[in-house]
């Protein structure tokens, strides 16, 4: 069984995001990490690999710095590493074309990814790829298992949660689940350093990245708030409630 996990490297959630001349200043990002929901997808992929004796292929798309994240994935047990090398802005169609071509190259029974990346916060990649590779799709899932030739998962929905099943091939986009994330051991880290990363560019994947009809105009920092009013002690609460009613008009 081929289990593919899609990983994205993003600024760590603790990192400050600064903007210079209308663009995010990537050079000032203090730490790059695997996107948090992708970590849950990776953990689940490792569990599936163990339960099915399958092969785990980790794929990412991004600039050179992302290679380190693939090595981190190998340290916990990813068997094959594929880096679709690309610098700069890609729209949803372009990123999905690149990733689905890479997936089709290796062939996937199941594709796991995070429900959204911590930088763009979009959540389009998993569902879009499901459509492009002709797979079924479920998002906001956890606890994916392979049972009797089908995959099952717990899916969150507006009325609570449900256990669903899908036949192969399928795509699961992960929410935060109950799983503890595993940490690499020393042996894993040493082995991972020797692991080859297959680097592919758009041309090798047969994808033409043409000019997008969706263009980035600018990035900006969120608008600064005017300094607030500070009060001492619970006795100030009647004043604050009055202000919420008369000044802010929110209650």
């Amino acid at each position, binding site marked *: 069984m081929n289990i593919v996990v899609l990983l994205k490297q993003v600024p760590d959630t*603790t990192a400050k*995001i600064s903007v210079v001349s209308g663009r*995010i200043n990537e050079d000032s990002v203090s730490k790059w990490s695997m996107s*948090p929901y992708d970590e849950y997808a990776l953990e689940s992929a490792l569990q599936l690999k163990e339960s099915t004796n399958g092969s785990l292929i980790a794929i990412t798309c991004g600039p050179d710095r992302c290679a380190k994240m693939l090595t981190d994935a190998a340290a916990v047990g990813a068997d094959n590493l594929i880096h679709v090398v690309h610098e700069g802005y890609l729209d*949803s*169609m372009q990123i999905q074309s690149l990733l689905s071509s890479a997936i089709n190259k290796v062939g996937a029974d199941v594709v796991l990814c995070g*429900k959204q990346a*911590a930088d*763009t*916060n*979009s*959540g*389009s990649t*998993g*569902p*879009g*790829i*499901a*459509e*492009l590779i002709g*797979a*079924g*799709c479920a*998002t906001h899932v956890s606890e994916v298992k392979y049972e009797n030739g089908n995959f*099952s998962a*717990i899916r*969150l*929905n*507006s*009325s*609570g*949660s*449900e*256990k*669903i099943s*899908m036949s192969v091939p*399928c795509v699961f*986009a992960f929410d*935060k689940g109950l799983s503890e994330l595993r940490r690499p051991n020393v042996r894993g880290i040493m082995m991972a350093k020797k692991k080859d990363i297959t680097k592919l560019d758009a041309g090798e994947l047969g994808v033409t990245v043409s000019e997008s*009809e*969706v*263009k*980035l*105009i600018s*990035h*900006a920092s*969120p608008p600064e*708030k005017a300094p*607030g*009013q*500070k*009060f*001492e*002690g*619970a006795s100030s*609460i009647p004043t*604050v409630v009055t202000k919420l009613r008369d000044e*802010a008009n*929110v*209650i």
Partner: protein
Amino acid sequence: MLTIIAENTGNSLHIITSQLAGAATTLGMKSQIICPNGIGADEAAMITGVTKVTSVLGDCFGVFDSTAWADAISSSIEEGVGIILASATPQGRELAAVIAAKRNIPIVQDAVALSPGIEVTRSIYSGKAVEKILVSGDCVITIRPNSFEAAINDNAAPINTVNNSSDVRVAVQEAMAKASERLDVSEADIIISGGRGMGSKDNFSYLEEIADALGAAVGASRAVVDEWGMPHTIQVGQTGKTVTPSLYIAVGISGAIQHLAGMRSSKYIVAINKDPDAPIFNVADYGIVASWEDALPVLKEELGKLS
């Protein structure tokens, strides 16, 4: 003309659908509305600025299956239709992403503002930055709930019905935990959230009482979701929900950068914390230096006087 994919609550139209029509009005455009499974079509026909409503009926609509739904819905929308608007709810985003891939057009998710051109404003890095995007061709755009005024009802647009189904791949084995009866934090207009300063999970009952009095949703910081096993669905912050209510009340939340990212765009923020140096006070419109034990009973009493 814009095409709107309606969102429903199971048996009627979700208010976000009227907000999508409101977004179309902002762009000075009329819209047609597609109602999956025909739900809410009568209500959709009443929305001002709507020229046509299409009810798409099919067996596939029994269970949410984005690839099947997208197939059935997309084949009822003409080619080269321009902009398709959908809601940036969890289900709306997934469906919209499949429709975009199917039609081979890009998607821009979770817009908070639109201006003619079309220029889209959206929040990125969970609120740590804002981006503006120019869309010049056919595109799917999802809209964050409560970002636009709902269009009013003063219309009687024609409704036509089409039968389009598709192969379903998702099977529901078992319905499990029921969502709490409480409002969802991503849709609520007022949120009261607790953090580690609340001391224990049990003390959230004090927040719930106030939430009930205000018609508010209860939220939580990552620390308490992780450590006290509270549902992840109420987590506000970078690995939880990004929220923009009119009023956000943070109780016993210190204000880590990841939490601030998820709530700093709230219209008004009240912080209650016994530590006067807590970073949450930097984003609060009204900061109250007090313990929750002292503050919440007074807050409850004062709110009670309002009604």
